[in-house]
Every structure is written in structure tokens, then in C-alpha cells.
């Protein structure tokens, strides 16, 4: 059970010509691994996350998934603002074929939104939105969590619950913050100018990144 990248290319057409995000990336992330992916702003991290999550297609190459991977968990991507938190939780339970009642109860309890749980998500503060997003993703239970940096996993009840969860499953954390990667991951890769390099040694990855 793993996530495999086989010679993955990604580029976008822009007015200034072709923008290369990935140029022949290869790698394998096994189940249970906690891997950080470091990249400067604008290096294409978010695109990479969406490709790993299977919501954006590579231009060329193959991404093979033999374990369950969450949707890219960021601010609140994947949620509908017109629907209430409860309706969003139910929608996702249905989409992933999980027990609707169990998920809704877990999310209601965990997100601590109170009455807001039944209000449209567009009325939420950004903190409430990310609490809901995280609660839903924890409720669904994946082999590997795909997390975009925006998520504030500090030393809060959330942070601790999240850390506990990924302790049991795996994590791919895409971030520009070496400190966050050091805290949550056991190895890391660096994305720079279209080249994705995996390092087995976390310190080596962080040193390379800091030298960029």
C-alpha cells in the first residue's frame, strides 16, 4: 500500500510561455510514512498537493494510489458555502460511502461549532471553517492525510487529536515552514524549480531547503 510517482510532469500554459511545475518526479510514499514536502512560495506546492490527491491530472506520467488518501485538506477546500456544516459532513459521508450518522455525530462533537453546525458555512469564521474541515477529514478515516500548510495544527485540542490520528496513519504535509515539517514528519522532499527531490534524512532535506 503506497502512493507512487512515476515520471510525473506538470506544466501550465501561460502568456509568458510554459510554466513548469514538475519535471519528471519519481518517488514512493509507503503507508504510515510521514513525509514533508518543502517548497518556497510559488514553487507549485499546492498544485503538487492536488495532483497527489488525484484532483488535478499530471500533464505526463503516472500517480499510482494503492492506499486511501484524503482530499487535500487546506483552509476549507472541498466544502460548499451555501450548505451548513452538518450538510457538508453528510455530503462527504455519502461521497465516501461512510456511515452518515456516525460521521455527523463525530463532527458535531469534535468541531465544537454549537449552533453554527446547522448554519451555512459562508457564515463561518476562517477558524470555524478549518475546524469543520479537519473534523470531517478525521471522521472519514484515511490511510494517509494530505495536508496543505494553511492548517494551523498548533498545541490545541485539535492539534493534539490530529497528531494522534496521523501517528496511526500517514501524512503528507506540504509546507514552506521547516519547523512544522520537523515536528510532524520523519522524512522530507524539496520542490524547487520543477525538481522534486526526496531525502531519507530529514536534516539533509531541511538543510537543502534552507540553502535555497
Amino acid at each position, binding site marked *: 500500500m503506497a502512493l507512487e510517482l512515476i515520471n510525473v510532469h506538470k506544466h501550465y500554459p501561460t502568456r509568458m510561455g510554459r510554466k513548469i511545475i514538475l519535471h519528471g518526479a519519481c518517488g514512493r510514499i509507503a503507508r504510515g510514512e510521514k513525509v514533508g514536502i518543502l517548497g518556497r512560495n510559488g514553487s507549485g506546492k499546492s498544485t503538487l498537493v492536488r495532483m497527489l*490527491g488525484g*484532483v488535478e491530472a499530471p500533464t505526463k506520467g503516472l500517480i499510482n494510489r494503492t492506499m486511501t488518501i484524503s482530499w487535500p485538506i487546506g483552509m476549507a477546500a472541498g466544502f460548499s458555502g451555501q*450548505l451548513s456544516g452538518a450538510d457538508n459532513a453528510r455530503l462527504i459521508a455519502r461521497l465516501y460511502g461512510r456511515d452518515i450518522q456516525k460521521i455527523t455525530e463525530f463532527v458535531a462533537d469534535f468541531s465544537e461549532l454549537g449552533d453554527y453546525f446547522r448554519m451555512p458555512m459562508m457564515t463561518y469564521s476562517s477558524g470555524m471553517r478549518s475546524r469543520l474541515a479537519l473534523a470531517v477529514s478525521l471522521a472519514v478515516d484515511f490511510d494517509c492525510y494530505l495536508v496543505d500548510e494553511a492548517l494551523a495544527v498548533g498545541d490545541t485540542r485539535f492539534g493534539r487529536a490530529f497528531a494522534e490520528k496521523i501517528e496511526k496513519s500517514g501524512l503528507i504535509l506540504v509546507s514552506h515552514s521547516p519547523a512544522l515539517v520537523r515536528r510532524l514528519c520523519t522524512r522530507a522532499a524539496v520542490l524547487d524549480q520543477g525538481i522534486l527531490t526526496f531525502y531519507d534524512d530529514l536534516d539533509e532535506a531541511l538543510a537543502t531547503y534552507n540553502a535555497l
Partner: protein
Amino acid sequence: MSFREEVALTLRGARMQRRVIGALIIRELHSRFGQHYFGYIWLFFEPLLLGSAIGLLHYLSDHSAIFGPFEFFAAGYILYFIYRGILNRATIAIRSNLHLLYHRTVTLPDIFFARHLIETISCIGVMFVFMFALFVVNGVMVEDPTKIILAFIGMALLTQGLALMAAAATEAMEGVERAVHAFTYLTLPICGMFFLVEWLPESLQELALYVPMVHLFELMRDGQFGSRFQAHYDIGYVAAWILVTHLLGLAALRITRQRLGLE
């Protein structure tokens, strides 16, 4: 992969797609109307009210040549409403549902299938209410309800094929959205809502039958009062249109999906 494995994989895919479409239908109902019952009533009453209003206008302006002008135009409008509703909404369907694509089980066609099912079922429901009301008021029963339902399903499928193409074109080019809206109105006079093929001069009949919608209006009216006129339709011709538009539309959406950048 053995044949059996392939079948198992396809079945699993079909089950997943059914689950996804079911989830999207519930979501669509919620987000289109909020939590208020008024929304559900509106889904039903919009075609019924507009259909009745148009029927009434024609009834009052007395087309003495037309049998049952109210039934003729009101039912015609309800059938047209499927076409207009599905095609006009197609242009915004992708943009307003982008966030759903963050869940990899959701495909672009699923989003359309879910919407179209809602639209079609509500319009068929409206048609039933309408036919029942006419039966109660006038004591006249339509001649063959099966043909009417078939016409609605045919119209939904034909429009679905066109909608898939329109949605892909909207993503590929600017301005398509406006063109689609203009198209649905410009096709109104030629789609068959206002005429029977047999009313047309012979030279125009042949031309009119190139328009696939005309066949569906004829089919519906054949079900309404087929014994009183000579219906002209060819289900095979409509089926060919449905098949070709679906193939082109689905292929175009596949390309669209690969190019689609999520935020």
C-alpha cells in the same frame, strides 16, 4: 486483467457512481433551495405556472384552428422547460461546483447527471399534475401517457448531450455562456413548441424534421391527442442525436477536466 476482474471493477465503479450521484442530488436540492420547503415547491411550480400562463395566453387569443390550445401550449412549454432549464444551467455548472472536485470520486459528468435527474423528474411530475388537473376539470384523458413520458425522457437525454458539450465549450472559450442563452431562445420558434409538422407546407416539413426537438414535440402530442392529427417523428433519429452529442460531450469534458485548475 481477466474478464471477470474487469466486470467486477466496472460494477464497483458503477456502484460508486450511483452513490456519488445520489449524494449530489441531495446536495443540489439543499444548496439550490436552502432548507426551506418553498424551494421544493418552486421547483415544481415554476414550469407549471409558466406553462399554464402561456397556455392561457394562447387560449385567450383564440386559435380556432388548434384543438385544445391550452393543453397544446401549456404541455409544450413544460417540455420546452426541460430543454431551457438544463441547457442554460449547463454553462455555470462547472464553476459553481468546482469545490466538489476536491473529492476524487466526483467526476464532471456526475455533476450534470445529478442536476438533470432532478430537472427531469420534476418536469415529469409537473406534467402528471397537469394531466390530472385537466382530467378533473375537463374530463378529457390524454390518449397515451407512455408516449408523453418517453418524449420527456428523450428531451432530457438530448438536452443532456447538448449540455455536456455546452459546458465544455464554456470552459474552453469566453462568451460561449451568452451564446448558449441566446441559442435556447432563438431555437424556441423552430423547436416544435408552436407548431405541428402537418401544419407546415411540405417543403418546410422536411426541413423541420432535421431539428431533433421537433420529433419529441410530435411524440408528446401524439400521446396527448394522436388520433386527431398525423404525427411525424422518428425515434431512431433522436437516438442518433442523443448518442452523438453524448460521445462528443463526454469526450470534451474529459479534456476539460484535465485542464481545469482548481484554486
